[in-house]
């Protein structure tokens, strides 16, 4: 595995759009070539080297390339966007769109990730050791396909609208989440180990949501169908199981109507 290290040397005055920071763009390139890749501040094009000191070189393929950002990039957007393989480690905070539409590989953010992380992702893994913003694993505006595969783990809290239009994959939040969890969800699993405020599973078609803590206000479209003893992400316990959202359309398979499932830990 070849490592490319980016050390931030200048904080962008406007936000930096750096969709080139990903193993796919760095693979097969020397440090100087990587420093020459473009980034944007508004309508103006700059080179990556004006904002980062680049050391190391990319591996032969994306899968053999590791990108390490050695500092805070809380004003840099699109890190790891559409990446297919390899790994990205951010040693500080990252701005919006971390791993948006990613297909494979691993992203680790040691600090916080801002909104739209893992938007529309189809595979790979995102680990946020701090907090995540709104629209985690959600869909891009107007798209009916949110997160479709892969895993997102957040050690801290997450914002609102997580897993909107989610169709597959797994989101695990160790802390609390804000309003709207799995709105329009049509597959996949969301696990919230802390509390959720309200609007959990609204307009949900199918898929699973697990909440270990409390939900302040339940959606009226969920019906209690019994209790189950299960293990969820390494935690065993008794969960109250609800089906819903009863106001929404639901598919029928093998003569059975499929509902979304919401599990609340006792």
């Amino acid at each position: 595995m070849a490592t490319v290290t980016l050390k931030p040397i200048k904080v962008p005055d406007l936000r930096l759009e750096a969709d080139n920071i990903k193993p796919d763009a760095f693979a097969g390139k020397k440090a100087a070539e990587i420093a020459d890749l473009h980034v944007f501040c508004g309508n103006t094009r700059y080179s990556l080297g004006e904002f980062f000191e680049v050391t190391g070189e990319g591996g032969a393929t994306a899968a053999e390339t590791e990108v390490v950002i050695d500092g805070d990039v809380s004003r840099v957007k699109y890190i790891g966007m559409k990446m297919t393989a390899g790994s990205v480690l951010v040693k500080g905070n990252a701005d919006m769109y971390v791993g948006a539409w990613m297909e494979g590989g691993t992203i680790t953010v040691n600090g916080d990730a801002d909104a739209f992380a893992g938007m529309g992702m189809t595979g790979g893994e995102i680990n946020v050791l701090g907090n995540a913003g709104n629209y985690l694993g959600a869909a891009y505006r107007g798209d009916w396909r949110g997160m479709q595969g892969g895993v997102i783990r957040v050690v801290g809290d997450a914002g609102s609208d997580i897993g909107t239009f989610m169709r597959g994959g797994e989101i695990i939040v160790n802390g609390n989440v804000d309003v709207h969890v799995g709105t329009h969800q049509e597959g996949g699993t969301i696990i919230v180990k802390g509390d959720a405020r309200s609007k959990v599973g609204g307009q949900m078609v199918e898929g699973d949501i697990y909440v270990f803590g409390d939900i302040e206000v339940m959606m009226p479209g969920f019906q209690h169908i019994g209790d189950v003893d299960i293990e969820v992400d390494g935690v065993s316990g008794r969960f109250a199981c609800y089906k819903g959202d009863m106001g929404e359309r639901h598919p029928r398979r093998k003569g059975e109507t499929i509902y979304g499932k919401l599990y609340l830990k006792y």
Partner: protein
Amino acid sequence: MAKTITDVVCPFCGTLCDDLEVGVSDDGKKIIDVYNACAIGAEKFLHSQASDRVTRPRMKQEDGSWKEVSYDEAVEYTATTLAAARKPLMYGWSSTNCEAQAIGTEIGEIVGAVMDNTATVCHGTTLIAVQDVGVPSCTLGEILNRADRIVFWGCNPAHAHPRHMSRYSIFPRGFFTGKGAKGRRMIVVDPRVTDTAKTADMHLQIEQGRDYELLTALRVAFKGEWLPDTVAGIPKKTIYEVADLMKSGRFGIIFFGMGVTQSLSKNHNIDQAICVTRDLNEYTKWNIMPMRGHYNVTGSGEVWGWLHGFPFALDLSRGFARYNPGDTTSNDLLVRDEVDAVFVIGSDPGAHFPNSSVKKIWDLPSICVDPHLTPTTAVCKLHVPVAFVGVETGGCAYRMDNVPIECRKVVDPPEGMMTDLEFLERVTARVRELKGA
């Protein structure tokens, strides 16, 4: 003896009343009176006649005083500021005509600006929801002639759109609505007892921020499924009753406003309200319509829709259109320090944006094009007064139901004043020179 100009269009709110009569002096230079308009609309016409009106551009000096400058100087400052910026925000566009919006977008394309309109703090969430789930809608004329079930959800037309109920929704007698208000059932959903709520057959005094739950409960009730005893403070018996009342009509309409678009859940409220409408079409005919505020905010969405495919929060900075409310919306850009110049036309962010955003406008090179003195003109570096669209110049505007209506010119602007369109054309020409575009 005054002349009367008939069929004048009111450039105030999205109802865009087109039956005003304006009395002008014999020389056609002064407005004497306005008939048929509501108090707000009449004031808009009469305010153009104010003796203390600012008629020339003004530039803020270092000591905070204002100095009158020529339109040439104003064009030069605007063009050089926009051309030099790396990510200018061009905001507003709702109280001007479509012609000005189109030429303004050309400037945005040349300089690579982020274009945003007042929907960003208003019905932008509606536009997000429409993109997510579509919208079954109609025109106000259809409502006048057909509607017998009217829902006002989180809006107060008695004060915000004063002639809406008398012209279209509650009182008029239409082709299939010969009994007027007597043949219509009116439901208001609002946490407050507003003047609109007082005229309703049924007022659901909902808990604040629980619209999404109540809308969901209605969809559950349509299907006859189980509901908790109360939802959003409304007993389930009432919810089933309302559901039956909605199903029983021949033609229904949900009007909604800021109470749902800018309270908790925002776009999801509208998304769910559209799904309620869609569900009701299993039983009878239902439609949904936003109560748009500024008279031509709908038009700016239309213009950008046909030019770039997105109705607000349009980011042209990289030379192609991008759109993602939350990232490319004005307040997010301002608060996150993502823009380096601000151009405002036909709106008043100084009054309607959070203080943290207004402070950023104050810090940046900024231009405000507006006939009035507003909180925004006070925080901008350059104020360019222009003729009133719909009073002193015509142009196209879109009503809240997406019907385009040509505004009429009633009187001349004060001598030597430019219109929005003339000013923007001059800026476009100069920006082209500066950018070599």
